[in-house]
């Protein structure tokens, strides 16, 4: 394998691992703030219990996010020097602002949020919790600005092959940024909603009848039910925006080879780049044209438009984009069914009377947000190939001249470390849930924070 392919696999593996944890911390920070504010307002111990359990999941996820993030920021230099050399004038300031306005904020106040409750006034602690949640969201904002700009670059000019910024406003608010930011923040919210509901369902199945668990379960199901329609709507608008700016990506998502009208929505197909057609197509007639152009006869761009006269393919590999898009949307539909059914059951029968099969199903959904998020990112990022910065820089031009065996070595090392950490992470979360379900972490004293009976060591 050559350096380019290995570097791509390495980058893809690293960022895939990284994004799992921000996806949790971004929204979980706000959920913790919610638990805390509910506790402040009602004094009801169940909110504190919920906070105490989930703050541990947060701390663990945060650490995983931080260490894998540091790896990411070095890889620009070690593996993709061409990236910074060409677009550094745009990417640099955006990354710098992320460090300055987000990373320091979350890192410094995380210490106070986690370990400072007994050392500062309650409002300082609540503020620290807010600042951590705010910091993670700011971080998502800046990195998504950069990532969107890589998909829809504007506000710059090329001088001697190097990008120079001309309009920062246009760069920050580039055409796909609002869609990507909204879609990603909602993805984070959904991931956490199903994590809360799924882990609580698991605890309910283990006969954990603590009020904190029930409230968390309700919070998760209802949050999911509220966010998923918004996400479907946002996703649809995101797709229309992409159709305008990166039609080749939408063509790959739809598996549509020829520019034409009356395009069906494919439910199943095996895109074949040799024959440049699909095998085993099953689709709903006209639906893709209706979704994308709001007209059954609407003409939808096809992949064959993106092959140069010399036969060079300038569209992304079709099958991975086609399939990852279907996985994301499929999980989205599953989320819709599960969260709405759950809300209905909660309303009709209450949390004490949830059917067992539903709880089993829901605990199976605990990490579904990850599946959809990764599938979404694969759609987006593979859909941009062969470009790294759409129309400006190809991935091939950016790669470092490091020897392939060297990249292979580090790739294997990262994969081993990440696989081990993933096992440990999942293992510890289930372990904590089991321990909490047995009540080992729920001291009986209901007198509120700061009273001895309520103190829990950070473990």
């Amino acid at each position, binding site marked *: 394998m050559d350096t380019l392919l290995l570097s791509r696999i390495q980058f893809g593996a690293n960022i895939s691992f990284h994004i799992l944890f921000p996806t949790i911390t971004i929204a979980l920070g706000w959920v913790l703030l919610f638990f805390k504010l509910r506790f402040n307002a009602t004094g009801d111990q169940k909110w504190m219990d919920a906070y105490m359990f989930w703050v541990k999941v947060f701390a663990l996820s945060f650490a995983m996010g931080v260490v894998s993030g540091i790896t990411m920021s*070095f890889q620009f230099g070690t593996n993709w020097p061409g990236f910074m050399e060409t677009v550094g004038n745009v990417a640099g*300031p955006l990354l710098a602002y992320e460090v300055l306005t987000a990373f320091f904020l979350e890192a410094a*106040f995380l210490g106070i949020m986690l370990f400072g409750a007994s050392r500062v006034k309650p409002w300082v602690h609540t503020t620290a919790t807010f600042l951590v949640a705010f910091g993670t969201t700011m971080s998502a904002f800046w990195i998504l600005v950069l990532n969107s700009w890589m998909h829809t670059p504007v506000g710059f000019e090329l001088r001697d092959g190097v990008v120079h910024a001309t309009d920062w406003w246009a760069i920050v608010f580039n055409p796909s940024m609002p869609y990507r930011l909204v879609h990603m923040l909602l993805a984070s919210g959904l991931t956490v909603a199903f994590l809360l509901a799924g882990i609580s369902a698991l605890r309910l199945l283990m006969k954990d009848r603590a009020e904190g668990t029930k409230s968390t379960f309700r919070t998760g199901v209802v949050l999911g039910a509220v966010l998923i329609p918004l996400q479907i709507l946002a996703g649809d608008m995101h797709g229309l925006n992409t159709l305008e700016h990166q039609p080749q990506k939408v063509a790959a998502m739809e598996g549509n080879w020829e520019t034409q009208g009356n395009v069906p929505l494919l439910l199943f197909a095996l895109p074949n780049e040799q024959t440049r057609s699909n095998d085993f197509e099953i689709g709903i007639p006209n639906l893709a044209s209706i979704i994308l152009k709001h007209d059954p006869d609407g003409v939808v761009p096809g992949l064959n438009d993106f092959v140069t006269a010399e036969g060079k393919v300038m569209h992304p590999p079709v099958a991975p984009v086609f399939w990852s898009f279907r996985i994301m949307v499929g999980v989205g539909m599953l989320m819709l069914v599960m969260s709405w059914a759950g809300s209905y059951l909660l309303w009709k029968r209450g949390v004490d009377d949830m059917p067992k099969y539903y709880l089993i199903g829901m605990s199976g959904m605990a990490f579904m947000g990850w599946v959809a998020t990764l599938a979404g990112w694969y759609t987006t990022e593979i859909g941009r190939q062969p470009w790294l910065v759409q129309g400006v820089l190809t991935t091939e031009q950016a790669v470092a001249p490091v020897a392939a065996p060297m990249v292979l070595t580090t790739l294997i090392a990262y994969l081993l470390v990440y696989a081990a950490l993933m096992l440990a992470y999942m293992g510890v979360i289930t372990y904590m849930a089991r321990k909490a379900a047995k009540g080992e972490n729920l001291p009986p004293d209901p007198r509120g924070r700061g009273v001895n009976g309520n103190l829990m060591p950070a473990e």
Partner: protein
Amino acid sequence: MFASLDLPFIFAALMGLSILIYVVLDGFDLGVGILFPFATPAERDMMVASIGPFWDANETWLVLAIGLLLVAFPMAHGAILTQLYLPVAIMLIGLILRGVAFEFRAKAPAAHKRAWDGAFWTGSLMAGLSQGFMLGMYVMGLSWTWWHVGFAVLTAIFLTVAYSFIGATWMILKSEGALQAKAVDWAKGGIWGVVLGMGAISLATPFVSDRIFAKWFEWPAMLYLSPLPLLSGLLVILIWWKLRRLPMANDHYAWLPFVATIALFTLGFLGMAYSFFPYVVPEAITIYEAASAPESLTIILIGTLFVLPVIIAYSILSYVIFRGKATALRYD
């Protein structure tokens, strides 16, 4: 308004500042990890508790330093990091291991705690060694010859011991009783790493290039520079003298070794900065050749001027909140 500013110089200074802050801050918490094998399980909990609220923010200075290198000197960024590909990867894996071990050791089933302690130690050691190795390679001009690698192996060992030394002085400040007495012994055992490390780099750098040699040994520069080695020597003597008396009644002077060590690291750093200026890739690319476009640097500078003081303020706030002797870490 910023047109007349020497932007490359300002950014080199900012980058230097964040590297220095990183080396001091993550230096002590890496050092605490490196000292793990010498502590009992209960002492380890205390040691982790003393760095718990800080390690993440400490590491962020590394992200800022690498970020500034990347944004201000994109040409140098690629040149340095591709040359240091392997040590960087080792450092990153080390930082990953210790960062997560920190959480896992407290949350995993008790039976796994020892294994996570091992990961914490290994990770800290990997990070310290690889940083020292990169320092040595950098001083030697980033070329992979046997001679240079040999030197880098030496600096790797010295920096690791120096980290364990500043970690020990931090523990003197943050602990009491038996652990504090132990920390004093650790510090006594580690000070040679600082002395030899600074000595090796000071002796080697002037011989790497005639330019650096001339900068140091020309009259009157030699006169102006003489305080650097003199003060460093005095600080080492001061630290040694205090270490022999610590711990003292009422915890007097428990802060002194740590503060003096920071001063020592700073002096060493100033000396290096003086040697290498104006080069960012030693003897190959100057900060002026590597700098990115002034418009982009200006945009960053404006933000930095507003945000950096705030960052420093709340970082200090966090050290103030968690001042005093370390206590068990709790979430409430």
